[in-house]
């Protein structure tokens, strides 16, 4: 608590503990990366913790383009593409809807706004098992079963609660005099949104986009329930790769595949972890 020398025994112990814990936390990713560069024999013969003796990129090539996913030896490449085709529109649409809802819910008064927001808020918490069966039926009726479009729809619908929450809380704290003076100057509904609110929304837009990107990229349950061989997102394909392998277990290919699936969200986290944490905190302190 008080200022002490950096070399006091307690401080040394503190840093030793922190460094040890940090290594423990990095261990699974280290294991993933190190073993993705080893030939399979080396993993079978030896130590998962050791660095590769004989470096090879074969496992990466296999995971990317030739590994067996289900019945096809396609590698993860087509499913990586599926995840992108899913994430990009789903993130954009759900963020736009959230901004619009947040604007309307904070800048206009109408009856039932409070219970409506409460209903949206609770939708964030529901276990999605409760909607799986009727959603499967709906997607079938809409002709969207087993398609990436269907997954976009599902992820947008169940993302609205979060994105609305983010923008509502942000716009609730927005200086009202700015909005008022714009209105006096004759700005209409869209004038206020496009010229006053959105230009000042960069932080919350970044938070929302990162949050939605991470969540939808990592999503598994909807993907496993509503997609087929042609539309699997990457998480489902990875799980198939790891869990359905008949015959020999190619650990190195599994690790390479897992890391390929981790790269996009990991890059986003490294570049803008601050905003990711803000999303986490905003998502946890609701109301």
């Amino acid at each position, binding site marked *: *608590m008080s200022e002490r020398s950096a070399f006091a025994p307690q401080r040394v112990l503190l840093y030793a503990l922190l460094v040890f814990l940090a290594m423990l936390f990095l261990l699974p990713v280290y294991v993933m990366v190190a073993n993705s560069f080893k030939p399979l024999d080396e993993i079978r013969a030896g130590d998962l913790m050791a660095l590769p003796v004989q470096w090879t990129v074969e496992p990466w090539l296999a995971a990317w383009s030739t590994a067996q996913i289900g019945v096809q030896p396609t590698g993860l490449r087509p499913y990586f593409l599926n995840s992108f085709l899913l994430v990009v529109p789903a993130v954009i649409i759900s963020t736009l809807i959230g901004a619009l809802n947040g604007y309307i819910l904070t800048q206009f008064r109408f009856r039932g706004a409070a219970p409506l927001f409460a209903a949206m808020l609770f939708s964030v918490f529901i276990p999605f098992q409760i909607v799986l069966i009727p959603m499967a039926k709906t997607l079938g009726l809409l002709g969207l079963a087993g398609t990436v479009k269907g997954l976009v729809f599902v992820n947008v619908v169940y993302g609205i609660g979060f994105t609305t929450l983010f923008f509502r809380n942000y716009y609730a704290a927005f200086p009202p005099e700015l909005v008022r003076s714009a209105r006096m100057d004759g700005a209409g509904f869209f004038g206020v949104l496009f010229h006053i609110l959105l230009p000042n929304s960069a932080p919350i837009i970044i938070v929302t986009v990162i949050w939605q990107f991470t969540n939808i990229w990592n999503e598994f349950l909807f993907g496993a329930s509503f997609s087929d061989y042609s539309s699997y997102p990457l998480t489902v394909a990875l*799980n198939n790769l790891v869990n359905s392998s008949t015959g020999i277990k190619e650990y190195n290919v599994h690790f390479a595949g897992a890391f390929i699936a981790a790269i996009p969200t990991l890059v986003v986290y490294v570049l803008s972890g601050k905003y990711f944490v803000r999303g986490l905190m905003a998502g946890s302190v609701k109301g």
Partner: protein
Amino acid sequence: MRAGLLPKLLLSPSVLLVLVCVYGYIMFTLYLSFSTSTLMPAYDWAGTANYERLFGLENWDVSVGNLWVFGSLYIGVAIVLGLGFAILIDQRIRAEGVFRSVFLYPMALSFIVTGTAWKWLLDPGVGLERTMHDLGWDSFAFGWIKQGELAIYCVVIAAVWQTVGFVMALFLAGLRGVDAEQVNAARVDGARPWQIYLHVIIPQLGPVFVSAVVILAHMAIKSYDLVIALTNGGPGRSTWLPSVFMYQYSFTRNEMAVGAASAVLMLVAIGLVVLPYLMSEMRKAKNV
């Protein structure tokens, strides 16, 4: 400003989607849980038969028992470690941002990714046990993931690893908001640092504990991906959770009505955990 037609019109698609796809679907699933549905939804009334069947199923008993074990350990350990990490980070350390990022990065990864890494790390054939043997510690045994009674603890380990950084961030925000005057007063009175934490700071973190328990409990009830990637519910059915049960019965065992009943009970559990918290949060927000 009073809402005219335009704002209401633009809000209505979202309202409609949420009402139909959340609350309408909840009612639909609730109805299915009282129906005779098997492979496909059916609409004949079956009364409480599905719930009676559910409560008689050993698979359900195992799933619920696992959720208690997993949930209580996961919440307890994550909170103790999360608070501990936050206190360590709060000692005016160098490179604070680096340590925080390292403890928090697993939250950015998919449970399928981390489940795969842990699956092989915990596997006695290739993972930790093997490493210890290679290092010469022949008696070291760590094969929990292959043992029915112990595999659920592997799920706890991986889940705690994944989320403890988040709990740390919650507590760290709480620690930074603690009343500095009280801390200084205690220090002037000659209290030791650990006494100050125990008697002055931690008692002020009540609301953070409540948030953390609610969020972790709700995550525990919804846990699915991690179990699938790590153990796929096995060995046997020893790491089934209600979420795994629901999927199995609804989509692979052709007992959709029983699956719907299990989903309803999951929702009830979430409601019991989350609704009181949300209501008190909203009341607080109103009073500010």
